[in-house]
């Protein structure tokens, strides 16, 4: 019993440490960004470069999320995921860039298809 309690406390400590580590690792990038921004002019070339890199990194993350997803999404078929994304982007484009319809549909499509 005592052993079980001690184990549970240890687990909870690891979780709290993990939350702190995750939050710090995330905030560093945001805060450094805020500091760098003070020296960057909107009209400068370096701003344009940062803008391109930001969009590319985001696109890379999305590409990875669809092709090599983490977590539960990995249990669906790759081809189904690609088809769902394709259909939803098409809906987005023909619905005058409405975002509510394609996002709601994506969940329904994938739930039915998988």
């Amino acid at each position, binding site marked *: 019993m005592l052993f079980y309690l001690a184990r549970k406390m240890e687990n*909870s400590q*690891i*979780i709290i440490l993990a*939350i702190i580590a*995750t*939050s710090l*690792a*995330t*905030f560093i*990038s*945001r*805060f*450094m*960004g*805020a500091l760098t*921004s*003070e020296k*960057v002019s*909107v009209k400068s070339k370096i*701003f*344009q*470069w*940062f*803008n*391109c*890199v*930001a*969009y*590319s*990194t*985001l*696109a*890379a*993350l*999305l*590409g*990875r999320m*669809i*092709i*090599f997803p*983490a*977590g*539960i*999404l990995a249990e*669906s078929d790759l081809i189904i995921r690609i088809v*769902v994304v394709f259909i*939803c*982007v098409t809906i987005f*484009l023909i619905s005058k*860039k*409405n*975002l*509510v319809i*394609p*996002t*709601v549909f994506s*969940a*329904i499509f994938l*739930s039915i298809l*998988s």
Partner: protein
Amino acid sequence: MINSKVFFQGLTSLKGSRSPAIPLAACFIALGALLKDAGLNIQQSAASSLFTYALPGQLVMAESLLVGASVINIFIAVWLVNFRLYPMTVSLFPLLNHTSQPKWKYYLSCHFLAVSSWLIAKDSYKKINKKHRIDFWIGIGIGTWSTAILMTVIGYLAADYLNKDMLIGLAIVNPVYFFCMMIGAMKNLSISLAVILGTVLGPLIYLISTEWALLFAGLIAGSIAFLFSEKNGK
């Protein structure tokens, strides 16, 4: 201190046909259920979204806890996956900058920077007077951040009622939303190139290095897009 009219304008960007509320809700409900699975209690799950508020990093944390990774390893893995927030901040905050605004607003509100809030801000900052843009941003941030925390708690509570197919359905909403927003943002050559090259390079480099893929893909694709549009006069 904060211009309340502009603040509420930012806050109400949660409504309407471009609302990020639905994808945010879907992915944080799925996250709440996953955090329960990883052994967190409800307070810890809420704290995770409160203090981290960046979904890919939280996913890495939950999966690392499940396989028993060390705290140092979690720190490095999260830093690598969330490093994208650095270029994202630098490509947004100069647009919000105004000399009359105190610096603490920028230092605190950078915590709200996530993909959804960033995409909304990039999409609509032009409508706001330069002087008050930071208050608009704080409004967007408070709205998206509190939605995320609330939905994490709901996901945690609903975990037992969600089956696998429903969770898979919830998990696709986020990438679909982001893809649509990114395609909507492809208004000039440099951004279009950056998005297309990034989408292709991300998974390709992932085959070589899982941890460094995002960083390298972003740097390479972004730099090519930048250089190409410079050469061709945008």
